[in-house]
Every structure is written in C-alpha cells, then in structure tokens.
C-alpha cells in the first residue's frame, strides 16, 4: 500500500485536521465528532444543509462546505457511512429555526444511519428535518428489486444548486423539492482503470490486469457491472454517455450541466481529453451543454477512472448553478 499516511487508523482524523488547518477562514472542524462546519453556521433564517458519507471521496463532502453549498458535512471512516450521532450533532448545530435538509447518497448504510439520525433529531429537539436521497447511477440495473441505484455524481451538482437556493433564503419544503427535482433530472455512469486500496484493508479491493477495465463502478472501490478489455477514450466515453442519455431519457434540445469527474488518481489532462469526447457525443445527440465541470470532485481514494454525469437544466437551475459559492472544493463569484 503506497499512500501518504501515518497509521491507517488515523487517516480520516488527520485529513480532517489538515482541512481545519488549511481553511481556518471558512471552516470549523469538530474533530471529536468528525464534522466539518461552515465557519459562520448556523446562518439565521437559512435552511441548514447537511451531507455526509464515508471518507475517501474528497473533496466531497467536507470540501463542499461553505457559502452557497453545505453547512456541515459528517465524515465516516473510509467508505463507511458516518453514524447517527454525527448527523444529530450536525443537525442541531446548523439549525437556525428554518429546518435542516439531509442530503444522503443511496447506500444502505448511509440511508439507515441518516434515517436513525433524523428520527432522533426530530424527537429530540423538534428540529424539522427533511431528507433527499440521491440515486443517479444508471449502472445499477433491476433497481426496483434491490437496494436501488447508487448516489454518485449528481450529489455534487445537487449540493451546489440546492446550496444556492438555501443561501437565498428559500424555505425547507421548497429546498427539499428542488433537491428531488435535481436528483430526478440527473444520471451518471462510471468506470475504473484501477482499483483502490482502503487503508485499513491494506491491499487493492480488486485486481485488474493491465489490459482490463471495470465499467459500471460506484465510488467505493467496488467492482463494476462488467469487466471489459481496456478501450480507447472514445469508446469509453460512448459506454458512459449512451446509457446516461437513454435512461432519463435526455432528448434533442435538452440543456445539461455536463460533468466529467475523475475517480481520484486520474490526472486532469485525461479528464479534459474525456470531456472532449463527451462534448462531441452530446453535440451529435443534439444536447446543449449549458455548463460544464471537469475535475476530481467525487472520488474513490486513488482509483484511476472517471464518471460522466448529465443533469438536465432549465434557466432556474442554471441561475442557481451560477450563484456564488465559496468552498474549498468549488468556488466562484465569491
């Protein structure tokens, strides 16, 4: 295992300490509870936005805390959802009377832990809590009879857009509806060139030959739906874009936010190259790219690979996307 770490058991807490040290201007980190707070939370009158999940997906979620995005992020162990105590503490801390929205990625563990937290928080302090679950991963089939689709790339776009709505003072029901609307209009698909190594496990989660790739992966280093021979970027782009476009389905004339995301170990030069392929495919499909995002935003430790997310947008969503955001991971207009 080759990582810049000390004891594998200390990775999450030491990385959080690093975040705290690097961003004292914008973040406050509760190291005990592993919660990253917006420094000026709670914001009077503002709906509190909380997300969280296993660590190993950086900058998500801690890097998306700040003006125009999240109020708090709860960090679990690597690839392990946080515990209800964290979400409860965060919920209480960011509640300014306008209620709190939990943004949960659809994984059994995340959903159950957030559910317990919401039940407890509601019972405890009377905080109004709503939850939205993201489940945009089209790689997961037969989702009706299983744990459903995974929440992946759309989560990033949702946290930004819904964050803008909360920032401008929209009330909880409206913010929650918006969150569901964003989720409903977004789809993703990912692939891996390599596995990744969970620090506590000490070795790669799966082995992949030099001429192989995994298609239809999530963000936890799990194997994908299919192991295929390594292909050129052009073919990979088609494998990712086609199932996304046909699933919603996106149609000629649709406007989208196009998001090419790296899995953590893929350098930007390759992501731009992939974006070039994706943009050409969308162009051929008559889909207009209203905005784009290219980079490592929702990752699987040092996994090499990428995912493509498309979010169908109208003027309102674009306006909220363009609104100022000031977080370590995403920043503009501020």
């Amino acid at each position, binding site marked *: 295992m080759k990582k810049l770490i000390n004891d594998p058991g200390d990775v999450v807490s030491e990385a959080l300490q690093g975040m705290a040290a690097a961003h004292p201007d914008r973040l406050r980190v509760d190291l005990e509870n592993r919660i990253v707070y917006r420094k000026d939370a709670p914001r009077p009158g503002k709906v509190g936005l909380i997300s969280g999940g296993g660590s190993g997906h950086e900058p998500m979620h801690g890097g998306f805390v700040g003006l125009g995005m999240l109020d708090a992020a709860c960090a679990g*162990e690597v690839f392990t959802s946080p515990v209800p105590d964290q979400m409860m503490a965060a919920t209480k801390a960011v509640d300014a009377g306008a209620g709190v929205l939990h943004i949960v990625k659809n994984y059994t*563990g995340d959903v*159950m832990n957030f559910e317990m937290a919401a039940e407890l928080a509601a019972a405890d302090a009377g905080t109004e809590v709503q939850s939205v679950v993201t489940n945009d991963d089209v790689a997961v089939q037969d989702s009706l009879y299983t744990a459903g689709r995974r929440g992946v790339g759309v989560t990033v776009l949702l946290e930004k857009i819904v964050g803008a709505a909360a920032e401008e003072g929209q009330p909880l029901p409206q913010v929650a509806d918006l969150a569901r609307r964003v989720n409903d209009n977004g789809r993703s698909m990912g692939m891996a060139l390599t596995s990744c190594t969970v620090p*506590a496990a000490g070795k790669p989660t799966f082995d992949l030959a030099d001429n192989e790739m995994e298609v239809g992966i999530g963000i936890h280093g799990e194997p994908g739906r299919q192991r295929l021979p390594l292909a050129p970027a052009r073919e990979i782009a088609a494998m990712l874009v086609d199932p996304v476009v046909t699933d919603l389905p996106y149609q000629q004339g649709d406007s989208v936010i196009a998001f090419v995301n790296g899995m953590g170990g893929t350098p930007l030069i390759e992501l731009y190259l992939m974006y070039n392929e994706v943009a050409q495919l969308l162009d051929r499909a008559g889909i207009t790219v209203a905005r784009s995002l290219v980079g490592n935003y929702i990752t699987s430790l040092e996994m090499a690979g990428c995912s493509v997310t498309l979010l169908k947008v109208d003027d309102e969503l674009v306006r909220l996307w363009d609104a100022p955001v000031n977080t370590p991971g995403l920043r503009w207009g501020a």
Partner: protein
Amino acid sequence: MGVDAFVNWLRDAAGVLHENAAYLTELDSAIGDADHGANMDRGFQAIVAVLDGTSFESADELLKKAGMTLVSKVGGASGPLYGTFFLRFGTALAGVSSINAEAVGKALHAGVEGVLARGKAELGDKTMYDAWAPALEAYDAAVAGGSEVGPALTAAAEAAAKGRDATVPLVARKGRASYLGERSAGHQDPGATSTTLILESAARTLA
C-alpha cells in the same frame, strides 16, 4: 443466566471478530467495499472498552448499551443492523427475572425483527438475514425439542453456518453487493459470515 454470561459473549465475540477482521474484509472486497472486518472490529472493540470501564447490573442494560455502542461507532450497513439487533435483544430481556432458553429465544426473535425492520431484507437476498433466519428456526426447534440455551444456540449457529454457505451462489438483492448484479454470485456474504461468528460465540459462552 446472569449478566456475566452476556459479558463473556460480547468479549468472546469481540475476540473472534478481531481475529477474523481481515477475512471479513476479504469477503467484502469481492462484492463490497472492503470494510466489513474493520467495521465489526471497531464496533466490538468499542464494546470491550465499555465493558472495561463499566459494570452492568442487568443483561438488558448491558445489551442495550452494546447495541447503542455499535450504532455510534460502526456506521455503514452493519452498524445500524447489528446495533438494532442488540438494542432489541436487550430490550426483550428487560424485566425478565430468569433468562432461560425461552427468554433468549424471544430476545433473538426481537433482535432479528429489528434487523428486518431496518434492512427490509428477504430470505435469499444474500444478506446477514440469510444466516439469522435459519438460526432462529433451528433455535426454536431445539427449544421445542427440550433443549437448553447452550445446545439450542449450538443448533442455531450450525444452521447459521449453513445459511451463510448457502449465500455463495445467490445473486444479491440488498446491500452493496446488489450493485454487482450477476457478478455477486459465487461469493459468500460477509454479513452472514459475521452473524455466524457471533452466534457461534453465543453457543460457546451462553449456557
């Protein structure tokens, strides 16, 4: 049966899960995210820390605390599931004056109902429930046949092991392994494996 027996169980289970942490993570690597061993080990070590620091008056307090500890320390799918199991197991023992085979049976049922309520798994979904369900059945049958706690738990553990083995060919329909679709077949479910270890530990310690 007194508090001590349950303390022994939790300590013994913690030891066994610690020893098997790498194995459980290995199983979870094939069809999951390579953390089940670390999760179980972290949770049960936290229970041991509680046991080292506190003495409990009653089995129900002890087991509820164990459940709350798992909920607070584990996370993931197994945290709420095992946490709920022990919470409800403990709750079922509250006010029970003599903890006998019947009381343990009720507690087991209550615990597994908690697992079902949280996880909504069905038999054959390739989850820990595939170990719990046959274990319950075997326990009930043994008690109906006159067995005491110890032998009944031995029967339960053996049935759990069979249920665990039977997860191998299944295609997962719940939890993380379900994302793999057909590719989940041919691998043993990590949660069914840890459930079996916990029941084997119970058979060894609760008598």
